[in-house]
């Protein structure tokens, strides 16, 4: 028996040994610090745009996950993570504006995906119209910060950029409101019907955005809204104190980077708290077996609505940020493909898993915005040099193909995702000493075992 086991284990044993070695004593600290130092140095020394830097950025983001999974103390993880994200990345961002934009987008989509994860991953409600709430938030700020508002409320001037902060909260509330509004009629439906109906609702919002330029011009129709307001800057003095002058464009870049990082951190915190509460457990129970969940006293519709509202409120806030970041929105920004893109992030990472969802968002955004266009341009360069690559092969053009294959392959081979949710870890913070005080009605374990056998 024992020899059998050893034989089975053998192929993996070298790997296992390496892992144990890397995880023992000071080894993980040294290894991670070395990794971090090398990657940071590469980024800061050579901040050019190109395939090489692409790879280093990927390594940088991978480092985040290595830190997250590493067997080190929490304080070390937090310190190193903060230094990398709050110092190394911004400085690199000043040196090279391209990548920090991609990372900002990745963070934004990660927060959006976490919101969808509450609905799809926790509560098991397949929402294909999620982008509708994103659109609501984006149009909210888009309308109020531009002359569009004068068409609706006559005499009202566009709001100043400093209202942006308040609108983050309003976006949250309006998102939640729409979540409840759209959720109420449809949440009684069974899973697959719900998917189609939410898809329809998402389309309705898009059609409305396209057509509500008449009779009153609310959304400016297909032309979209441009020159959307941005919040006033206030971090300039910080840079001046260090004797650095940066342009306003660069400053906004950093501004939104930090804003998105902050919102993402808040989102993770909220989602984590909820998941480990009676509400999160109720959602999982609904996902696993609705009938049993009702029988255990879980108010089905109320809990589903809550999931919908929480997910929608994140989308609403991110919509406000998105419109200020882009300063331009139009209806095609919020089409079904966007919803499905966010869904594929959740599915790639692992439905119900918070780190998984973030990983999924980062991978999909990087592929979509950085790696595929880069591969495309490298291929084009090769083609110019006479390498026979068919002209039609342009990876950057095939987003749908990418998302589609991702969904099919994940469903067939790994439906639980790359980093599946780990239910077993939940109880770790409660490994306190055994036999808790036993109430009068319940006998101790040993005794009850005996009487059950007897």
């Amino acid at each position, binding site marked *: 028996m024992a020899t059998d086991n050893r034989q089975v284990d053998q192929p993996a044993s070298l790997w296992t040994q390496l892992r144990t070695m890397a995880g023992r004593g000071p080894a993980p600290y040294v290894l991670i610090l070395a990794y971090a130092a090398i990657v940071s140095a590469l980024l800061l020394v050579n901040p050019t745009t190109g395939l090489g830097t692409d790879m280093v950025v990927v390594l940088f983001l991978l480092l985040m996950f290595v830190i997250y999974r590493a067997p080190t103390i929490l304080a070390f993880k937090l310190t190193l993570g903060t230094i990398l994200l709050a110092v190394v990345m911004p400085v690199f961002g000043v040196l090279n504006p391209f990548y920090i934009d991609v990372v900002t987008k990745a963070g934004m989509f990660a927060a959006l995906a976490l919101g969808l994860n509450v609905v799809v991953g926790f509560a098991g409600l397949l929402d294909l119209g999620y982008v509708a709430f994103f659109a609501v938030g984006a149009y909210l700020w888009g309308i109020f910060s531009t002359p569009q508002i004068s068409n609706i409320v006559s005499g009202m001037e566009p709001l100043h950029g400093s209202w942006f902060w308040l609108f983050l909260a309003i976006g949250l509330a309006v998102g939640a409101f729409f979540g409840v509004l759209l959720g109420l009629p449809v949440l009684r439906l069974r899973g697959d019907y719900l998917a*189609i*109906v939410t898809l329809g609702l998402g389309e309705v919002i898009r059609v*409305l955005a396209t057509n509500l330029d008449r009779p009153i011009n609310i959304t400016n129709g297909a032309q979209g809204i441009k020159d959307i307001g941005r919040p006033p800057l206030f971090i300039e003095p910080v840079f001046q104190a260090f004797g650095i002058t940066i342009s306003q464009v660069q400053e906004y870049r950093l501004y939104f980077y930090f804003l998105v990082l902050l919102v993402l951190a808040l989102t993770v915190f909220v989602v984590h708290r909820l998941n480990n509460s009676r509400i999160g457990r109720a959602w999982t129970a609904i996902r696993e077996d609705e009938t049993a969940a009702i029988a255990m006293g879980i108010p089905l519709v109320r809990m589903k609505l809550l999931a919908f509202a929480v997910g929608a409120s994140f989308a609403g806030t991110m919509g406000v940020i998105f419109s200020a970041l882009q300063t331009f929105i139009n209806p095609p920004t919020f089409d079904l493909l966007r919803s499905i893109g966010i869904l594929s992030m959740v599915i790639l990472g692992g439905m119900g898993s918070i780190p998984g969802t973030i990983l999924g968002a980062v991978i999909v955004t990087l592929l979509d915005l950085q790696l595929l266009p880069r591969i495309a341009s490298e291929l084009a360069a090769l083609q110019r040099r006479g390498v026979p690559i068919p002209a*039609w092969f342009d990876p950057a053009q*095939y987003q749908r*193909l990418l998302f589609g294959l991702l969904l099919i392959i994940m469903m067939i081979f790994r439906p639980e995702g790359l980093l599946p949710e780990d239910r077993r870890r939940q109880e770790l913070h409660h490994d306190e000493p055994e036999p808790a005080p036993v109430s009068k009605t319940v006998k101790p374990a040993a005794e009850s075992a005996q009487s059950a056998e007897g």
Partner: protein
Amino acid sequence: MAVEATTGAELILTRRSFRSFMSEVFGPLLQVFLFVVGSAVALGGVVILLAVVLRGTREDIDLLQGTITILPQVIVDGLVRGFLYATIALGYTMVYGVLEFINFAHGEIFMVGAFVGAFFGAALASSGMLTTINPILFVIAAVLLGMAVSGLLAMSVERIAYRPLRNAPRLVPLISAIGVSLVLQDVMRMIAVNTGLGFNAQFRTPDLGQPLVLAHMPIADERTIPVSVDSRSLIFIVVAILMLIGLNYLVNITKLGTAIRAVAQDRPTASLMGIDVNRVIAITFLIGGALGGAAGILFGMRVGTINPYVGFLPGLKAFTAAVLGGIGNITGAMVGGIVLGFLEAFVASYLSLFTRGQFSGASYADIVAFSILILILIFRPSGLLGEVVAQKV
């Protein structure tokens, strides 16, 4: 003596089965016909009533006269839309019947059918045969070709992307189907763009004849306007009806149809009775896909230009039609398609007229379709013709 007796019995048998044959093949069509007439009369009545009520709101034109003038054209439009949704909805409903699974990629199967026709037309054009070929032959060949390609495609999709997931939780195959739909869109785009057909592909046909004038309707000051059906719409309606007859024959009369219905009722039992369930499911996809492909050809022929994303909206609306009629119910899918098609045609044509062009009817017709879907699912999830089924605990 003995011989005569048997013949007599057989005669009775054939006569009886002929009657049941007629009722099973044409009965559903009669029902569809009733819904066509009913929808046309009811909606026509509503718009005329509205026109009378709203007559005073417009001085520029006579609202009542305008309403009645376009009514015949709107009804034809409703019929075409109705049969379009009906033929696509059949694919959804049959698959749902056997697997309880929404084949999200069905709209793309339809789109591929349309492209097969466009390729066929382009091939004929480049070989110079497009002007010489008999139009009827062209229609038949194109429809058969579209049916074959779409049917086989649907079957392969089932084999690759759905069958491995048959026992997984409900949402897993649905997500896979969403993936298939995206993949088909982009693969079709890749093919179309790189074969010279282009993203917006022209559907070339031989000259299919002039519009058929049905009547001349008198309007004010003794002028008349012709009430006509264009030939492509007519082809659409005729072919769709022929297909529906064929499908009813297949499902209600043949042994294969019995097998399909058996699998739909109870898969484990059907397999115990010696039915090859995998084969039946594959054939269901084949039939549903073929119907979708034919619908795609007819649709492409009618609209003239298609693109790889053209399957999405009709697919979604056909699903609405299937739910409206009672999903899993074949006659229901046809009826649902007809009702939805009429509603949409009326909204699309009359909304702008009644609101002085403030609301574009064509866009809001989509919203009407989805609203119907939601209302039906909430208030009568079993659809117009479905039965109320108890939830199993």
